[in-house]
């Protein structure tokens, strides 16, 4: 590769690059890179492949399967597992799934609405105290979410909010990073000249926000919505700490509890097949969402780092 043919003109350089020996080297390298890439895909997919295979097995098949753990058993029992999953403890799994949806949607939508309003306000209004409050907000991006769990728990137990849906939803509304993203985006996406022009035409601040700014902010809104829904859907520590009624659990906490039950020595219930099928069912919605909404998240996730 180090054949430094310093060309006299760009044209000659291109011709040299396209000629025989160099080209061959160029062809072989994509192959090598493709193999590395395939290896990576394989690694990232193995656990999910295992999950799909294991969800078709009975408890016995999980331990002493006929074809090893990465291939299907003789005895495929996917529907039996599904039926058992939805009937276990009076259909508690469906309740957990519903709770996860409820928490993720209300928390995600709420956090996004707050972030859009605040981000736009920070970007486009030079109000007094803006710089100080934005610095405070930037600092809070650095406060880890889990560091807030115990403080939130002690505060909520003082006001009797623990073990209600609000104990999960309210903390999910807080998304300083979303506000930051929105401000960075709004700064350039909504030109000041456009706002001024609308103002001269007699449009009020609310009208400017709803009919001019909002459409321009759409890509950032999609990103913040996605990020906060995923964050709430994946949340484990917070609901684990603030909820004690199994009927209020999201899927993550519920499955964690089944795992503890099954692993408990002796008197434990053997729910292994339910944990596996339950895990599979619960990851399907988000994976589908990500695969089908590609064009919304692929550009957006990098907003924070591109500046």
């Amino acid at each position: 590769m180090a054949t430094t043919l310093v060309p006299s003109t760009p044209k000659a350089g291109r011709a040299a690059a396209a000629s025989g020996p160099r080209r061959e080297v160029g062809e072989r390298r994509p192959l090598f890179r493709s193999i590395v890439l395939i290896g990576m895909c394989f690694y990232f997919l193995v656990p999910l492949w295992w999950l799909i295979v294991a969800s078709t097995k009975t408890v016995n098949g999980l331990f002493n399967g006929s074809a090893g753990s990465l291939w299907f058993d003789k005895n495929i029992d996917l529907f039996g597992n599904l039926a058992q999953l939805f009937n276990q403890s009076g259909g508690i799994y469906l309740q957990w799934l519903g709770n996860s949806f409820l928490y993720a949607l209300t928390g995600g939508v709420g956090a996004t609405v707050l972030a859009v309003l605040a981000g736009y306000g920070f970007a486009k209004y030079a109000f007094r105290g803006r710089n100080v409050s934005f610095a405070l907000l930037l600092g809070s991006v650095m406060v880890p979410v889990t560091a807030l769990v115990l403080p939130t728990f002690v505060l909520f137990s003082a006001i009797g909010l623990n073990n209600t849906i609000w104990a999960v939803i309210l903390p999910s509304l807080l998304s300083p990073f979303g506000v930051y993203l929105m401000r960075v985006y709004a700064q350039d996406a909504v030109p000041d000249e456009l706002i001024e022009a609308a103002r001269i035409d007699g449009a009020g601040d609310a009208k400017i926000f709803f009919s001019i700014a909002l459409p321009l902010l759409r890509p950032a809104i999609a990103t913040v919505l996605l990020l906060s829904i995923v964050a709430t859907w994946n949340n484990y520590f917070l609901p684990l700490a603030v909820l004690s009624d199994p009927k209020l659990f999201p899927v993550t906490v519920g499955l964690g509890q089944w795992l503890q039950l099954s692993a408990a020595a002796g008197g434990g219930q053997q729910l292994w097949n339910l944990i596996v099928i339950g895990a599979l069912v619960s990851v399907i919605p988000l994976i589908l969402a990500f695969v089908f909404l590609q064009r919304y998240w692929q550009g957006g996730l990098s907003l924070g780092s591109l500046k």
Partner: protein
Amino acid sequence: MSHTLEATNAPGAARPGKPKQHRKRPTVARRRNLIGWSFVAPFGVVFVALLILPLAYAFWLSLQTETLAQGNTFTWFDNYVRAFSDPLFLEGARFVVLFSIVVIPVQMLVSLIAALIIDSLTTRLARISRVLIFIPYAVPVVIGALMWGFLYSPSFGPGAEIFGLFGLVAPNLLSPDGIFFGLINIVSWQWAGYYMIIIYSALQGIDPALYEAAKLDGASKLQIALRIKVPMVASSLVLILVFALIHTLQFFTEPHILKSIASGAIDASFTPNIYAYNLAFSYTQFNYASAISFALGIIVFIGSYIFLVSTRKRSGL
């Protein structure tokens, strides 16, 4: 910073016809102030109620100690002194620091290599793997830990079969010696795809004319990758580093999930966060748990803030 709306007032201020302007300006400014604040206010309320208030309350609790005789008494910083001389807390803190030092470079390297390869290929394979590698991000951490826990398990997992093919004994990644590496693998698997997307988007933003110029100077593909692409995405690497650090120092979910199947390898003070959780919920020592939680949050906060300020130019935050 302040060029957004002052600009409209500036011409008025510069004009000599003062009296009228003077009377008008404050009301316009005040109106804008008010509207600006009302956009920010809803978030502000949530910010105060769910960030400032809990932290302040936890701090207040952490300054007290519960005694049987008198209930809560004010003991100032006793709980913090106790934390920093508590071998269980220090051991957990040592573990997360060590863990971060190993796992963060691993994650960044994997995601950087993946992003560079995907960026350099225009094949369908590259487009598909971009999505496939990202998918673990869509899997809840609980489920990620659960799946790997099953895969590691000597009674469920394929470890024994795969290593058996080569006549080897599979390492037990759920044992006290193996759990460190088991967790490194889980965390890297979960987050590398997300970081890959961030780096990849930054790579896509580089002007391809740079590569052309380098190629004319005889640079190889590898040289272009290492000397042009990597430095150009340094700001996203810094951002990833900070997020990974904040995330790893707060390590909780993965070890908490693995705890029930990795008997003996993960104890009640495995990481500071697990310790605080157990203090609060198993031993009801809320004051001490608040102190540990607060101390940890402050350390992470100060650490990442210093880091970001010192690399401010690069991170763009």
